[in-house]
């Protein structure tokens, strides 16, 4: 059972758009069994969503991405969870991780302009009671994201025929 789930997840992590029938064929499983597992894993929140990896730089949409290092005071009885929740509830926040090392939370943020991001940090994030300090790093270029190289798509350079 576990092995089946691992196989399904390993495959769809890289290619979530594969249709059910084809997925079942490639994994050598019954279509209904795969469908049931997928549904169960969605229900159990093992599969949390199906997203699209976009290189926004190739579009006319303006996007600014930042990684913000945040030092916070943990709260009695709730540790970092409550402050993390206050941060992740902002829709402009993409991700919030609890980090070991020199700071506590790593927040990734997406805004339309530099000013928008700056405003979020100074008006919203820094003013939270438990936030001690922030350090904002702007992303200048994405080379690789989610295991996929964005900078240079791969081309098949093999000969057309070989024995």
């Amino acid at each position, binding site marked *: 059972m576990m092995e089946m789930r691992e196989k399904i997840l390993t495959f769809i992590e890289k290619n979530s758009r594969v249709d059910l029938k084809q997925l079942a064929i490639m994994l050598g499983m019954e279509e209904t069994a795969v469908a049931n597992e997928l549904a169960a894993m969605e229900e159990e929140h093992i599969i949390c969503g199906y997203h699209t990896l976009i290189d926004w730089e190739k579009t006319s949409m303006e996007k600014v991405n930042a990684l913000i290092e945040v030092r916070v005071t943990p709260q009695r009885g709730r540790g970092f969870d409550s402050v993390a929740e206050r941060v992740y509830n902002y829709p402009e926040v993409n991700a919030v991780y609890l980090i070991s090392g020199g700071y506590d939370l790593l927040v990734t943020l997406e805004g339309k302009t530099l000013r928008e991001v700056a405003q979020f940090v100074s008006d919203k994030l820094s003013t939270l009671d438990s936030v001690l300090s922030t350090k904002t790093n702007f992303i200048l270029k994405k080379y690789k994201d989610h295991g996929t190289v964005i900078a240079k798509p791969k081309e098949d350079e093999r000969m057309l025929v*070989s*024995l």
Partner: protein
Amino acid sequence: MRNPLSERIVDIPFSGIRKFFDIAAEMQDVISLGVGEPDFDTPWHIRDEGIYSLEQGRTAYTSNAGLKELKIEIAKYLERRFQVSYGYDTELMITVGGSEAIDMAMRAMLDPGDEVLIPQPSYVSYVPCAILANGTPVIINLKEENEFRLTAQELKEAITSKTKLLVLPFPNNPTGAIMEKKDLEAIAEIVMEYDLYVISDEIYAELTYQQDHVSIASLPGMRERTVLINGFSKAYSMTGWRLGYACAPKVILEQMLKIHQYAIMCAPSTSQYAAVEAVKNGDEDVSGMREEYNGRRRYLMHRFTEMNLSCFEPFGAFYAFPCIREFGMSSDEFATRMLQEEKVVVVPGTAFGDCGEGFLRISYAYSLEKLEEALNRMEGFITKLRQ
């Protein structure tokens, strides 16, 4: 002016795919299923070691037989994966691809008049190498009804008083056939009975999909009769690095090494340093790629079933060998027309021996998207032919 050429060389035919390559190279939007190498890049940690060796200035010759560290790691790997044990110092040599090892083994073992049994369809170099080594190739035509495995009966029927060597090319290019342990046991019995030697070309050993590959050298009494050939090209996606190896009893290997010393010197050192990393830390890469191939293989077989195209299920390498006899065309004609009309490249079965007539070699070393598009075109072609 005198004829500059050797008659024996001129008599050896060119390989049968040049025509397809020439036509395809001139066309636009061609999709190929004709490639005999993996589509993955060499895993980065392996490439990185190659680069590092260059940065360190490790650009000199290695010893003729290859880097000691690499030989030690290969010996461990063979023990771990296939339960065959070879002494790294006297029974193992690093070659320029599996191809060189085939050549060296034939040259070390054959005298004029010795017959070499070569099951076909199989890789194109065995026959020319046998001829170049003064041997006489004798073809065994494998049958689809046996899933292109070699049977003891077929072997027995081909043996004469001159037979010395049997080439065992499994997992097989082009058919994707494998030999299971019981198949090999039946072969080993005959080999010992008739006092033959075996060149076992196991370059696709890591790519089997039903059960682990079994090496004939692991069977009782066979180690001393076998030259085992393997390499890095298919398992680690390292074709361009040109690195293989041969294992054999000392008495054979030292003669192979002698030829290698004079003809080659040593395998490329950069490739050898990279290969140490591959064989030490590459098991996970190999199993990941195997999983990928297996998914494509299942998909390919499913499509053939949907097209109603007859094809035995291949459990090795990354090829399928469907039968196209129903269309009343030769393999060559079918492949040429499909290239011209649908722009899909496949290799006619006849490129791998006359008994490949009526079959095509389809490679699934392609991304799923490409495979799907090529199979759609192939399906269109077949539908048109059936109307």
